[in-house]
């Protein structure tokens, strides 16, 4: 149950959200099911509804998934002047990506008011766009969601990675942190991302 106090708090926070933002993007593999995440998702989605339906600052945005070229995406990342941007690279075929995705939604819920911008980027094939969108809707991913049109080699070369999930922090189009699975001994967790987000938000 969400109390009136909490709602008021959320409204205040979301009204303040316009000024300074951070953007977070992440990659996912997707295969849909994620029973262990359901409680988080429910909590996050309740919060999302509370914020998006009541706040004039955040219009109730439908969850969409637009296709985009990497070059265009990199341009788009320059467009959040001064805000921290989290980019989450994922796919509907990627189990660890989908397990982690609720953390991105939570981060958005928790830090959007502080100016964090979250962006998800799917590397699914175009023919799997519907499946990816279905997952995003289920997750209440109420932020910009893109599906890369480029071949895998293009984004693999750009970020110098082979695998997803991968998460990047950007500010003014410049990458300030990268979290990936390239070293089997040092795979990132969402705690790592969250710590970096908090550190860079207060900067």
């Amino acid at each position, binding site marked *: 149950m969400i109390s009136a106090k909490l709602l008021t708090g959320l409204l205040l926070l979301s009204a303040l959200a316009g000024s300074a933002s951070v953007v977070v993007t992440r990659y996912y593999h997707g295969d849909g099911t994620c029973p262990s995440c359901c409680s988080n998702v429910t909590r996050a989605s309740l919060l999302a509804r509370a914020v998006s339906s009541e706040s004039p600052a955040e219009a109730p945005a439908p969850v969409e998934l637009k296709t985009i070229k990497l070059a265009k995406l990199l341009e788009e990342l320059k467009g959040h002047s001064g805000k921290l941007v989290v980019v989450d690279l994922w796919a509907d*075929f990627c189990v660890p990506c989908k397990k982690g995705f609720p953390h991105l939604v939570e981060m958005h819920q928790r830090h959007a008011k502080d100016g964090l911008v979250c962006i998800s980027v799917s590397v699914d094939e175009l023919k799997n766009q519907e499946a990816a969108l279905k997952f995003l809707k289920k997750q209440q991913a109420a932020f910009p969601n893109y599906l890369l049109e480029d071949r895998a*080699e293009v984004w693999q*070369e750009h970020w110098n990675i*082979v695998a997803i999930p991968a998460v990047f922090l950007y500010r003014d189009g410049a990458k300030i942190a990268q979290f990936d699975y390239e070293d089997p001994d040092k795979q990132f967790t969402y705690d790592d991302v969250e710590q970096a987000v908090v550190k860079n938000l207060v900067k």
Partner: protein
Amino acid sequence: MKRLAIALFVGACVTGLALTSLAQGGNKIAIGDPAPSFSGLPGIDGKDHSLAQYSNKDVLVLCVTCNHCPVAVQYEPRLIDFAKKFSGSPDSKVAFVAVCVNTDEADSLEKMKERAKEQGFNFPYVRDNSQQLGKQLNARVTPEFYVFNKERKLVYHGAMDDSNDPSGVKTNYLEPAVNAALQGQAPATAETKARGCGIQYKRVN
């Protein structure tokens, strides 16, 4: 006594530095590196598999794959075709071994056996329970391929071909690499980026 303490301290520092450099990716496999040794990996045939048992073959091809990944599944018919062509008979010069590193329930040895039976796998499919081989190979996705020559040096690492969708394949990387290795030569393309599902490794604390 003081000298001994200093010697011990210096020794500890050097050891610490050495371990740190290893942990910082000094152990990443590269073209020309020897095949990581493995033994006791349980296979779907009920037997344990080792690097040594394939020593009579001129070329060893390893494929890190799994059951659950849709990309790996897309490649299953291609693995079967490859095995038919290169490692299908006892006198084949090529050994082809599929390795599962993943820890998901869907990738257990029992599920591997089921999957192999359903799909008619014609190659050894073994489990790397400790994930040690996966780490030594620096395997990051499924499927990811490795070709070792007669001296068991790595001569190719990466994807099998250039498209997950079999109808979109324009270039096969694996077969030319194997053919070159059989001729004792280095392949024209030694490295590509594998595409597939990220392999999750157990966290080392």
